[in-house]
């Protein structure tokens, strides 16, 4: 202590303005200003850093998150946007012995919830014997009647759960909320850990902080153990990219090596769930469900759902698939249940709740309503059911500050209206330090802790996800208005097992699984290839156009007239410097890429977004002529950067082949129409040079043909050359080669319709001599290429 004191003058003192908030416990400091032992060495480390160094380190953590592309989706009034991840860099530290108590409490709770689910979907003895009111269950929208008496394959309703807890002023931890439907945050907890351990890298390396990888490994093994046979697969069922936690679904899928699947990827046939892939349908027997159950099957559940799989409930009924968690597990996320858990725990477990939940009154009962009316200052009114706002009538009555009015409302309320409401004791949370302007300050926090059912029973993730309030107001209500998140460190007195987490992709627990590409992913990659290529073609065309425009002094030359017509025929408005059609193509490319985020490098994604943003920015400033031509050059260099990333760095898996085929087909089609117009006998003077320029082959042409530019040399170089990566024939060869490596769906020795079509066209073009190719034939080749695209779609992408 004294040594640290001695260095204070020259070093940083982050605690200079820190003091606990009146009425709340502080995690870091006791009421009399002493640092709690578990924090001591961390605070020492923090104090040993110079202020600029701290700032630099925090920036390093943010940079990691930005580069890793961690974001969450925030819903506004009209649309939703991706927001940067709000990491609070200071972790929450918890002593191992205290953590063990928390874990024991939560494991007991998970077992209790499992038993309640089994009863609610089975014999309903809790209702019969008076432990649960029947209307609380019957009214719960997550009590799914099609799942009643349907014992889940794997026997458990819960396999992965989360519990939000907070520490009250008495120092005890309290349960605030159970998450049993499709708990989110485990992947974010991992990302918080990576970022935070980078900020405090030297300290973290030597500190006795429990690592997280073991937890994920155990759960992954558990998922695999649930398979009914060794050849079937395990996937994550996600609602898709518009979900607020889609990033996390993609991240965990990558981290654990699971297939990331949407409803559209799955089909039920003969009672079995199959993944539609480019190599046919493959059985899947375990789905980690991140989709709310009511959306899982439009036939038996919410009929309006477009995210589900028709027949999934029937497949569950047959026991051919295990959903994690089982359909209907969301019924347990019910605040109304809190009121009854203490008694049910005694009844079912013969013991009180090891960790209490927030005191709760269910207002479907007259006696409870009287009690609430007498204690209105101490409670908060909530919906009795998961994720539901207060009923509008109740919001009117309890939105007022007038306690007397609310008390009257409670006394005259019917059981039926009351059954939708609970009153919960207002919670005061403990505070934990956050870094603001180089100084630590206390902010209220709650923890989300994750539990996974493994072969050895429930395992608690030794860490978690802390939500930190924006202001110093420690009432739980304030947490709903934004704030930040932080890592949770469980600190041991002993050295911990050095479990590596980062090299997950090569970690020993990755089991070999046949790479089978879902048809939907293949379709998106194929179109990504096409859209990016289409955008590139447009850029080259516009650059040529604006250069000619400037050169001609904005006069109407025959070539410009022809070029304008050609641009318009391609659906592009030449009046706009950065046409809407171009920005649409980029937006479509991002749309396609967004649907396959798990198969796509972060760099590629960022490059694509950068490209679209630049195009939008340029659209506001550029003027016709050289200025636009230059702008197109900028965009071309960026798009080439993206293509480089994809084609240099992407592993040659089946998905890459579809992307590559998409690009080649698009490029060949565009070249056909370019040549049909600008290499035509009657084309305007200067057309041939324009074709070579748009075809990016000026240098090649000069080197390859000593003679003047003629129709024959242009068609040879851009149409029939086998070495020029801009020519039609070159790309047909590419398509042919990639198609030959795609999975074969039909058996037998005959060629498939697809390879037949490609070979035919390839041969037709390969045997031609440049001087005899007519413009009409070039147009015809283009149409045949489009037909190849159709056959490919029918074969693999439907």
């Amino acid at each position, binding site marked *: 202590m004294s040594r640290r004191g001695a260095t204070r003058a020259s070093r940083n003192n982050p605690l200079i303005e820190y003091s606990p908030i009146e009425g709340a416990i502080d995690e870091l400091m006791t009421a009399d200003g002493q640092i709690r032992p578990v924090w001591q060495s961390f605070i020492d480390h923090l104090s040993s850093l110079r202020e600029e160094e701290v700032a630099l380190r925090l920036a390093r953590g943010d940079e990691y998150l930005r580069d890793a592309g961690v974001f969450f989706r925030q819903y506004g009034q009209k649309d939703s946007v991706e927001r940067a991840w709000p990491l609070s860099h200071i972790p929450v530290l918890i002593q191992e012995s205290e953590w063990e108590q928390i874990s024991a409490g939560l494991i007991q709770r998970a077992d209790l919830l499992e038993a309640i689910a089994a009863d609610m979907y089975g014999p*309903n003895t809790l*209702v*019969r014997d*008076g432990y649960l009111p*029947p*209307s609380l*269950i*019957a*009214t719960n929208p997550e009590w799914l*009647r*099609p799942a*009643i008496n349907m014992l889940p394959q794997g026997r458990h309703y819960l396999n992965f759960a989360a519990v939000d807890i907070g520490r009250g002023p008495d120092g005890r931890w309290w349960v605030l909320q159970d998450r049993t439907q499709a708990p989110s945050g485990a992947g974010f907890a991992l990302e918080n850990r990576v970022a935070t351990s980078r900020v405090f890298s030297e300290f973290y390396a030597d500190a006795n902080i429990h690592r997280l990888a073991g937890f994920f490994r155990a759960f992954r093994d558990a998922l695999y153990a649930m398979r009914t046979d060794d050849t079937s697969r395990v996937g994550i069922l996600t609602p898709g990219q518009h979900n607020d936690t889609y990033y996390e679904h993609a991240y965990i899928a990558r981290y654990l090596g699971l297939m990331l699947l949407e409803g559209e990827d799955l089909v*039920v*046939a*003969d*009672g079995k769930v199959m993944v539609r892939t480019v190599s046919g349908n493959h059985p899947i027997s375990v789905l980690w469900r991140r989709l709310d159950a009511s959306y899982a099957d*439009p*036939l*038996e559940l*919410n*009929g309006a759902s477009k995210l589900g799989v*028709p*027949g999934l409930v*029937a497949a569950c009924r047959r026991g051919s698939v295990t959903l994690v968690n089982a359909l209907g597990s969301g019924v347990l996320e019910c605040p109304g249940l809190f009121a009854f858990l203490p008694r049910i725990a005694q009844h079912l477990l013969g013991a009180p709740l090891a960790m209490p939940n927030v005191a709760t009154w269910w207002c479907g009962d007259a006696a409870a309503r009287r009690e609430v009316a007498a204690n209105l200052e101490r409670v908060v009114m909530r919906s009795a059911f998961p994720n539901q706002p207060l*009923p509008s*009538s109740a919001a009117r009555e309890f939105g007022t500050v007038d306690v007397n009015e609310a008390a009257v409302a409670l006394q005259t309320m*019917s*059981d*039926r209206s009351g*059954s*939708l409401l609970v009153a919960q004791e207002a919670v005061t949370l403990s505070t934990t330090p956050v870094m603001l302007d180089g100084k630590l300050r206390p902010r209220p926090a709650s923890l989300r802790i994750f539990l996974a059912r493994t072969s050895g029973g429930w395992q608690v993730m030794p860490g978690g996800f802390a939500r930190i309030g924006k202001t110093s107001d420690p009432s739980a209500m304030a947490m709903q208005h934004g704030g930040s998140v932080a890592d949770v460190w469980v600190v041991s007195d002993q050295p911990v097992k050095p479990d590596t987490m980062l090299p997950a992709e090569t970690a020993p627990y990755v089991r070999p699984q046949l790479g089978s590409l879902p048809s939907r992913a293949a379709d998106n990659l194929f179109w990504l290839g096409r859209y990016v290529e289409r955008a590139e073609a447009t850029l080259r065309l516009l650059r040529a156009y604006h250069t000619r425009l400037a050169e001609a002094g904005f006069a109407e030359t025959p070539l410009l007239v022809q070029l304008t017509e050609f641009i318009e025929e391609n659906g592009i408005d030449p009046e706009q410097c950065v046409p809407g059609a171009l920005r649409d193509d980029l937006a479509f490319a991002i749309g396609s890429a967004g649907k396959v985020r798990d198969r796509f490098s972060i760099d590629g994604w960022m490059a694509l977004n950068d490209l679209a943003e630049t195009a939008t920015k340029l659209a506001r400033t550029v003027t016709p002529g050289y200025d636009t031509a230059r702008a197109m050059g900028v965009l071309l260099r960026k798009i080439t950067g993206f293509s480089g990333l994809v084609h240099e760095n992407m592993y040659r898996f089946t998905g890459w082949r579809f992307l590559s085929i998409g690009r080649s087909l698009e490029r060949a089609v565009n070249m056909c129409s370019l040549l049909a117009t600008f290499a035509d006998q009657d084309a305007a003077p200067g057309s041939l040079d324009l074709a070579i320029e748009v075809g990016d082959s000026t240098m090649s042409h000069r080197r390859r043909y000593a003679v003047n530019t003629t129709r024959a040399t242009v068609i040879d170089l851009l149409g029939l050359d086998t070495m020029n990566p801009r020519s039609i024939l070159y790309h047909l060869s590419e398509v042919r080669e990639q198609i030959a490596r795609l999975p074969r769906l039909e058996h037998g020795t005959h060629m498939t319709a697809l390879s037949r079509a490609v070979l035919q066209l390839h041969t037709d073009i390969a045997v031609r001599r440049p001087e005899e190719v007519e413009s009409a034939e070039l147009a015809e080749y283009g149409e045949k290429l489009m037909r190849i695209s159709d056959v490919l779609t029918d074969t693999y992408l439907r």
Partner: protein
Amino acid sequence: MLYEIKLTTTTTYERYANAGRHLLRLMPLDGNLDGQRLIAGSLDIRPSPKERTDAYDFFGNRTTEVVFGESHRKIEFTVRARVDRYAQANELDLSPLLGALPAELNMVRTLDARSPHHFLSASPLVGSSAPIAEYALALVGAEMTVFEAVNALNLALHKDMTYDGDATTVDTPLEEAFEKRKGVCQDFAHIMIACLREIGIPAGYVSGFLRTEPPKGQPRLEGADAMHAWVQAWCGMECGWIDFDPTNALIVGQDHIVVARGRDYSDVGPVKGVLWTSGDQDTEQAVDVIPL
């Protein structure tokens, strides 16, 4: 009363529809509690499905799940059934006073298919609605028995609503139909269910058939040309469930044949399907219910 029933629903698609999956609830119930017996019944499906699974849903309704393997332009479901219907319209009021119903409800400690607890709060298609609550509360009083209250609403809705096949579609929300005071049996049933729940009476939706030709000297009932819908109301421990038909201002008796029961249309829809087609589709129903 013995009936011979034939129902055909035909859906034609403008363009080919791809392999789809359908859940059917078309077969009359077989059960003493419903006052009817299914003597014989068959469900014929064209084109012939690739998969077919017969089962019962939570509410005890007969379901048939079918999967078509090939794309098609037309699907036809034909039900042929012989039913003995012996339910009597309830004449004796043994129901409690309206104010005593919550206490009776609290005594029911079960969640089986006939438990009134399923039928009191909002269901997918029948939520709570202020104008409907106001309408219902104005018609009933604490001095009424539950049965009297239900009957009063049954008659009032028949009087205040106009049967109009063009005013609504199958997707029209009940608030809209109520505002227009127009609709078909589905709208009448949903509005009455909403009214009953607002005054604290558990109520559900019943789908079924009406006899096609009335007995001599009586008018033809509205809704006999297609599947019909009416309401079940829970009238206390003693009376249990009683069926009312607001479209025809009737207490249900031997002219009605029950197919399915649920909280609202979403639980009993006769043909629920998911398939992929880009064009329009058109469904027609033909029903014959002939007393033997």
